[in-house]
């Protein structure tokens, strides 16, 4: 048996690959749910109800999906250019921290202030990834390890800031940063839920990223650099500039996720405000086959699993870590599914 490269990839295959991957992941995880003595179908039923069953659960799911769309875009943009940004988590926190810090004492009219804060969050995330990108270009240091290690450094830095200079005096010793001014809190999208206007910002970001990647000179250049760096260089595309551009865009998207989470949900920063948005963003990007439109769908899937698993855990007693298992499994199954879109098995 051998793998043989497909001449063309039928569109139906591209569309079914993520579905097949998700189904495979759910089937595999079913064994673990059964091991907990719970009927997997019933458990998945609870999960769906937990994410879609009511107005509240649906909005909770979408609230969770909002930052995932952005961290997913961040990973997708970077991976397309073969820039292994695994630091989405750190960039998310830097974006959040910058937003809370500046948003606490900013004195600008509401909408303008919000825009400024988002830009600050983006800048913070972008700067954080610019470091590893620079180290790769200047010294040849692999960015996987540096971005991963920066996640740990950033979390400690956030802890330092919210216990020190940015401590919220009104939080009664609870380690939390000062909140953004209420003038800059994003309005509710659905009244009396946590779902906020940030979702629209995330969707708009997906649209903009799609436009940039497919229609602009920068997009074509990044794609060329990611697919065949030597040919791109031969055609006169500057690889350092491309990599740096991609790093800034990717970091900015993850930073924006942090900014929006602060402005829309938490108000201030805590070290526990992210249930791994950055890492989950990698799964989202892969499930989307690095396509911006797919990112939105994949983010909804991952948010469904996380929000639904909480509800399912409460109802059935299955540990809620099953959500992380399903998400991780779907990354691995997606990887295999992608293989079969580009190769076929021959005897």
């Amino acid at each position, binding site marked *: 048996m051998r793998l043989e490269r497909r001449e063309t990839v039928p569109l139906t295959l591209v569309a079914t690959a993520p579905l097949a991957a998700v189904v495979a992941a759910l089937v595999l995880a079913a064994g673990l749910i059964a091991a907990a003595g719970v009927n997997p179908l019933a458990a998945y039923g609870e999960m769906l109800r937990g994410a879609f069953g009511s107005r509240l659960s649906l909005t909770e799911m979408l609230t969770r999906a909002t930052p995932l769309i952005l961290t997913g875009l961040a990973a997708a943009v970077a991976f397309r250019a073969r820039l292994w940004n695994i630091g989405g988590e750190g960039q998310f926190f830097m974006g959040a921290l910058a937003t809370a810090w500046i948003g606490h004492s900013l004195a600008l009219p509401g909408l303008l202030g919000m825009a400024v804060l988002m830009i600050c969050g983006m800048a913070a995330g972008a700067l954080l990834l610019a470091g590893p990108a620079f180290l790769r270009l200047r010294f040849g240091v692999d960015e*996987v*390890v540096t971005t991963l*290690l920066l*996640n740990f450094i950033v979390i400690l830095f956030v802890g330092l800031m919210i216990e020190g200079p940015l401590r919220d005096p009104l939080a009664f010793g609870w380690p939390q940063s000062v909140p953004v001014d209420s003038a800059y809190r994003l309005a509710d999208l659905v009244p009396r839920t946590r779902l906020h206007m940030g979702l629209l910002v995330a969707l708009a970001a997906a649209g903009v990223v799609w436009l940039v990647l497919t229609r602009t000179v920068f997009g074509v250049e990044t794609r060329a650099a990611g697919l065949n760096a030597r040919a791109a260089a031969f055609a006169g595309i500057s690889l350092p500039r491309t990599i740096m551009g991609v790093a800034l865009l990717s970091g900015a998207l993850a930073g924006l996720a942090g900014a929006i989470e602060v402005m829309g949900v938490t108000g201030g920063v805590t070290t526990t405000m992210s249930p791994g948005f950055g890492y989950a963003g990698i799964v989202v990007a892969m499930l989307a086959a690095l396509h911006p439109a797919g990112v939105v769908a994949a983010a909804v899937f991952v948010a469904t699993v996380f929000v639904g698993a909480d509800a399912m855990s409460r109802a059935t007693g299955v540990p809620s870590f099953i959500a992380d298992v399903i998400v*991780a499994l779907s990354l691995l199954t997606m*990887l*295999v599914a992608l293989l079969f879109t580009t190769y076929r098995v021959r005897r």
Partner: protein
Amino acid sequence: MIEALDLLMSESLWAAVLRIATPLIFGVLGALLCERSGVLNLGIEGIMTMGAMTGWLTVYLGGDLWMGLVIAALAGALMGLLHAGLTVPLGLSQHVSGLGITLFASALAYYLYRLIVEVGETPPTIEPFRPYAVPVLSDIPVLGPVLFTQTAPTYLALVTVAVLAYVLARTPLGLAIRMTGENPHAVEAQGLNPNALRVGAVVAGSALMGLGGAFLTTAAFNSFFPEMVQGRGWICIALVVFASWQPGKALVGALLFAFFDAYQLRLQTVVEGVPYQLFLMAPYVLSIVALILVARRAEVPEALMAPYRRGER
């Protein structure tokens, strides 16, 4: 300042260095073995978590400590087999697969832990490995308490360094593994199967990573809790580069690193007015600095991360 220097003279600091280094030694040797065969294993962080959980759980459920280590190594090997299966015959992205293994192995470890163990206010504990004073040798002043009053897994780690160094440098198998990491076509051309060698190396390397994780729960601490690996796996990946893919240098790197870690822990108690987070950041910052220092000089195995498919160039 004087106190900071005094710390350097304490036996407990130097004994702690070896203790802190042990999981790193296992981890870095494991990662090194994988990479020498041409496979980057970013699953290390999750594999160490898996090893920590399974090793602990075995003892918690009534197995003895050595059984715990064996089970942890097996669990690590199993995860390694998954990574190898995806990246070697299927040739999938080693980056993405590795990260997937890390996410999967950690999630699975937490899930199984919650499923099997009743967790109350504080996590349940086991009776861990005790330091073993090697007869005679442990009576040597200074060296005795530092080198020869360690737990059994620490001795095992040191022996593993020597064994791996010998195997890689002096046996036909070691040569074949090194060659696979340099040029798998050469291995195939000499009638050996490069992909089988890679799978074997990744499985064995992952077993070592599992041992590194198990040390945390069966010797360094006595319980398992989420996030306990704390990026040690990533640090090991950095140390492999720092060590230029040599087991001996890997030992030196792990010890150096552990020294700074042990020292910063103790410095926290004597230096006042500096937030503790800055001390905790030190190991991660140090890893990045180490990478920058060696990056240009590193002799990377030439075929690292290049999947091998027969008949494809």
